[in-house]
């Protein structure tokens, strides 16, 4: 399965993501610059890494979400291509409307950089099938605007549709996200956005490998 990483000015987790995908799949992902208007047909997984696209000057991810490459991502996503957005990538997916909701300033108003625990809320997605339902995994977070919010009707809908992929354990929710939501998928299940950084926990040297199964599943290397 061929992966591509989207590059935007201000992202700073692109190298981590490229290293993770290369280590796990054995081949380096394509890199696609923000001004590109198309993504090659043979790309099966698109990843938008974390950072601070366009300095987050307007709102997190807002300017990036309106760049030409995101129209190409939207077209691929609508055709079923898998898309993962991590941290700023999650913010970009929300701002682009590919996922429902918004990420606001952390309730504490503080930048958080630490390890949290995540519950695998739905182990039946193409991204989470390498985990057991309800499994608790460790994962680092580093963000200022990770407070997931949506109106009550949308929240009820995503809960009813099992679109919550990951939740913070109640004692480690770092940002005040509603229902402890850390990551969600779209209705079709092929677009995932999450605030934590699984790409930073894929080999023993990182202190753990809990993030590895997510990319193995997304790359089609494990089947449930």
């Amino acid at each position, binding site marked *: 399965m061929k992966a591509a990483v989207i590059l935007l000015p201000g992202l700073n987790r692109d190298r981590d993501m490229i290293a993770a995908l290369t280590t796990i799949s054995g081949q380096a992902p394509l890199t696609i610059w923000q001004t590109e208007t198309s993504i090659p047909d043979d790309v099966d997984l698109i990843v938008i890494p974390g950072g601070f696209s366009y300095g987050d000057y*307007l*709102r997190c991810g*807002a*300017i990036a979400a*309106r760049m030409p490459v995101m129209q190409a991502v939207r077209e691929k996503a609508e055709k079923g291509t898998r898309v993962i957005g991590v941290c700023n990538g999650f913010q970009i997916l*929300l*701002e682009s409307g590919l996922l*429902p*909701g*918004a990420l*606001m*300033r*952390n*309730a*504490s*108003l503080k930048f958080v950089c630490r390890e949290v625990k995540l519950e695998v809320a739905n182990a039946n997605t193409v991204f989470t099938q390498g985990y057991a339902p309800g499994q608790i995994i460790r994962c680092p977070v580093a963000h200022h605007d990770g*407070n997931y*919010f*949506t*109106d009550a009707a949308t929240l009820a809908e995503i809960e009813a549709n099992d679109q919550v992929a990951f939740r913070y354990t109640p004692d480690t929710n770092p940002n*005040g996200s509603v229902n402890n939501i850390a990551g969600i998928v779209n209705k079709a299940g092929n677009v995932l956005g999450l605030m934590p950084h699984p790409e930073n926990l894929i080999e023993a040297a990182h202190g753990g490998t809990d993030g590895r199964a997510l990319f193995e599943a997304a790359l089609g290397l494990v089947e449930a």
Partner: protein
Amino acid sequence: MIKARVTVTLKNGVLDPQGKAIEHALGGLGFSGVDSVRQGKIFDVVLATSDRKEAEAEIKAMAAKLLANSVIEDFSVEVI
């Protein structure tokens, strides 16, 4: 030239941690009569047109497309 001001505010019911922090700070500075504070943003946009109607429609489109996030924010447009 037409100047317009777009005011973006968080929707009612959306938690505003920054507004809360400011509200708390005002209390700490001795302003005891503050009931609540909500923080927003103002964009002053100057358009190279003289058609007020066209300018207003254009600014509203800009606000809806980029300046405000309709999930959490409302906006109002004032042509000055």
